[in-house]
């Protein structure tokens, strides 16, 4: 096991806490232990829209149910599509909301609106959830960049994710899970030489700061420090040294290996990690496509849940899995399913949410939500709550203009909150 992912219990036992009485609360050891328990987020984005019917909300033997059977999960009475046998065994860790009902029917706007929580239009661009978390919770004690994104394709600094919060909160994207440009020390410069000249730079900056306004020096210092922390943890991008078994368990495909990198990032203490899987937009040949893709997702996502549980990180990590919408129950002429925001599912686990429950239900044909429908704003309320942030009491500050962190007409999904 990674030495950094020591479960809290090892350093700070429950018994010691209870036995220590109130005096313990003030002790620095306690404070340190609490700090180690930085709340984190894993945000799994299935781009294009996974079919709820071929995953979390199967409707076998109905008009639109498709060819797959449903299977029992580890929680009696809850069934998943048979394409997810591994996640079915993890249902007791999950909280599945089957009553999502959102507005956007197009990818171009949906991807953005869902990730920004579709707030009321105030003429400003809202931050993605990750940018909001980075802003409200900061980088945490790891000092690593607080908002990272592991994705196929190109990487870079995605400032547009930050909206009005400003470029600082944009995501640091690792294309193909690879490190950012210039992360590694120049091959011609030894570690000693690199460290020595960096110490010299710090000394020069300190001297300059002593004669000038400190603000600019402080900003410069903070980014060099973050660069140093990330350089020191360049290993989190490297899955080659992990046990063979791990790499098999997550699956030898992009999503599996990206999830493995994500695990390492969470273990290293990165505040918010997003992992994207592309290609879920199955307008044609929906069933073969899902038969190919869902098992890969099943494999990697369930391995992640197992590992986060084993390391204790699941207690402090909010896990979220969703798309920009679900897929139409009606099967089109190309044996595909189209976009369906009216009734779809998201899955959650870990920090602040109940486990082993399903919230809400769709009607028999899966076309509409039968229980109380929830828009994405309600999910944002739920997630912020789960992280200990009350959206009714917390606001963003857009250059003096206070703005709600989640849709101001919505409330959290109470049933889902622990």
């Amino acid at each position, binding site marked *: 096991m990674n030495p950094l992912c020591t479960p809290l219990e090892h350093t700070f036992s429950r018994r010691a806490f209870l036995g220590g009485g109130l005096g313990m609360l003030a002790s620095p050891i306690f404070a340190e232990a609490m700090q180690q328990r930085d709340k984190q987020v894993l945000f799994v984005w299935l781009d294009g829209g996974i079919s709820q019917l071929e995953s979390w909300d199967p409707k076998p033997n109905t008009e639109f149910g498709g060819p797959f059977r449903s299977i029992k999960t580890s929680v009696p009475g809850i069934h998943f599509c048979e394409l997810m046998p591994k996640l079915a065994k993890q249902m007791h860790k999950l909280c599945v909301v089957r009553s999502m009902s959102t507005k956007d029917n197009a990818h171009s706007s949906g991807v953005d609106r869902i990730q920004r929580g579709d707030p009321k239009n105030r003429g400003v661009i809202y931050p993605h959830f990750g940018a909001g978390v980075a802003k409200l919770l900061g980088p945490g004690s790891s000092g690593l960049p607080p908002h990272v994104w592991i994705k196929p394709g190109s990487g870079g600094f995605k*400032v547009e994710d930050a909206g009005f919060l400003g470029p600082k909160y944009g995501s640091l994207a690792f294309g193909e899970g690879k490190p950012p440009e*210039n992360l590694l020390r120049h091959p011609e410069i030894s570690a000693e030489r690199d460290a020595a*000249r960096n110490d010299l*730079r710090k000394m020069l900056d300190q001297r300059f700061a002593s004669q000038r306004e400190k603000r600019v*020096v402080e900003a410069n210092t903070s980014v*060099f420090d973050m660069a140093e922390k990330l350089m020191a943890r360049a290993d989190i991008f490297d899955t080659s040294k992990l046990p063979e078994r791990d790499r098999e368990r997550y699956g030898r495909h992009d999503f599996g290996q990206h999830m493995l990198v994500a695990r390492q990032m969470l273990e290293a203490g990165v505040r918010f990690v997003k992992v994207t899987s592309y290609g879920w937009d199955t307008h044609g040949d929906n069933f073969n496509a899902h038969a190919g893709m869902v098992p890969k997702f099943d494999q990697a996502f369930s391995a992640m849940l197992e590992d986060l549980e084993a390391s204790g990180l699941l207690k402090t990590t909010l896990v979220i899995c969703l798309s920009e919408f679900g897929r139409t129950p009606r099967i089109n002429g190309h044996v595909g399913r189209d976009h369906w925001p009216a009734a779809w599912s998201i899955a959650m686990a870990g920090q602040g949410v109940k486990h082993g429950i399903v919230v809400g239900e769709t009607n028999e044909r899966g076309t509409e939500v039968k229980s109380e429908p929830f828009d994405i704003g309600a999910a944002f309320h739920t997630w912020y709550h789960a992280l200990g942030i009350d959206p009714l009491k917390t606001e963003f500050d857009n250059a003096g203009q206070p703005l709600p962190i989640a849709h101001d007409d919505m409330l959290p999904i109470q049933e889902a909150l622990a």
Partner: protein
Amino acid sequence: MKIGLIVCLLALTTLAWAKEGRLAEKIDALLPQPSAADDAEFLRRVWLDFDGGIPTADVARVWLADQSPDKRTRLIDKLMGETRFALRMAEAFHVMLMERRGENEEWKTWLVECFKTNQPWDAMVREMLAPDFLDEKQRGASYFLTRRLEKLGQQDTDYAGLTRDVGRMFMGIDLQCCQCHRHLTVSDYKQIDFSGLYAVFQNLKLQPVDDKHKIPWLSEGLINAKYEFVSVFTEKKSETAPRIPFGEEVMIPVFTGDDGWLVKPDRKIKEVGQPKFSPLREVAQRIPTPENALFAKNIANRVWFLFIGKGLVEPLDLHHSENPPMHPELLELLGREFTAHQFDLRFLIREIALTQVYQRAGAHQRHLLAEQKLRAFLTATGERERLEKNQKADPNVDSAKYALADFEKAFTAALANPAKEPELAANPSLRSALFFRNSDHVYWALRPRAGNLIDRLAKLPDPAGELYLATLTRQPSDAEKADLQAWLAAHGGDRSKALSDYAWALLSSTEFFVNH
């Protein structure tokens, strides 16, 4: 004879100043400063501002040794006479006006020409707002509009964004919130102020290059009625003719039938048509005028910000009655004199440079553009000429490993602000830190190579003076000299490496990357 003429001219100008009072002196009277920057601090500041880079150690040495009392004024005038000044102003205005939306050769050429020939600001703005697309000399100006109206992906054409930027850039007002309702926090800004401009810009259509037009161009539709808008708060319907913010509505001429067209649209011959009434030309005439007080104040404030490091009104695009300038009399004065001098930017810039506040000790630490940082870095490392000569990079030859364009690309990628963000403050990022710490570009420039900084330093028994002059444009203090000595003693096994590391630390330090 020549000297006589200069004396004569000087006497004449002094006479004129004595009568009118020079703007710089009036500013000094309003903002007297306790102490002036020393020569080295002034030299670096003025060079970064007017040339866009830093002086070489040799140039600095000569100027610092000059004892004549008027050498600062002469330096300002010398730098303003160089082509570099036009290039530097073009760079600064490009970043200010386009906010890193992209590069365009014709636009850049237009900006450089404007500053070379000292085009008045009102003429520049008229050309940007209503360019003649067929005139080779001014079509570059159209990039301001056309770039903003390009469709990106599936998003709608951003007419609202263009409307907002015209207010921000030319009147110093950000009307974004007034797109859907009155401004919530600024009582001066009304929905009609946004809508009057929006009516004009939403009527534009971006047209592709064709036989007549060498660049993308804009056509206007026929406007024969007022533009209607609704407040999302009150649901009250209102309407406005084309109108500049806080101004009068432009009368919409009444035509019957097809009379409104100068050239009728005709699909068969792909003629998009040209109306007789051009709202775009109307606002382009009405915004850059002496009557529109915000026009002069906005640019005076922006130029002040550029050279002083702090706007008299901040944010730069939030002029309104409840956000008064920190020195109202001064902004009033700047706007008035700038207007009286026919919006002459050179006049304004030179007068600001001559003030005590520009030349004071301990000025605001100012952000450098990626372009300034690159120029300063290449002058300091002594690698600029080599890179300029390298037309094409050759990875197998050390001295030809990079061309200037490679460095421009790398520095902009690592140091420039993201697109559509005003580039105002020093904004160090993880990406820039990683670039300086680990990139091969920085490593390459600091390897000893014939004639470059490290090569020169390695030959000097006591390199501190040259090192500090070349990088920070100043002499080192005794403590700094001692630090370098100690460093060389400890790491002197390979003197070039030790010097390269010291230079790296200086060039990665905050002092190098701000103007102060």
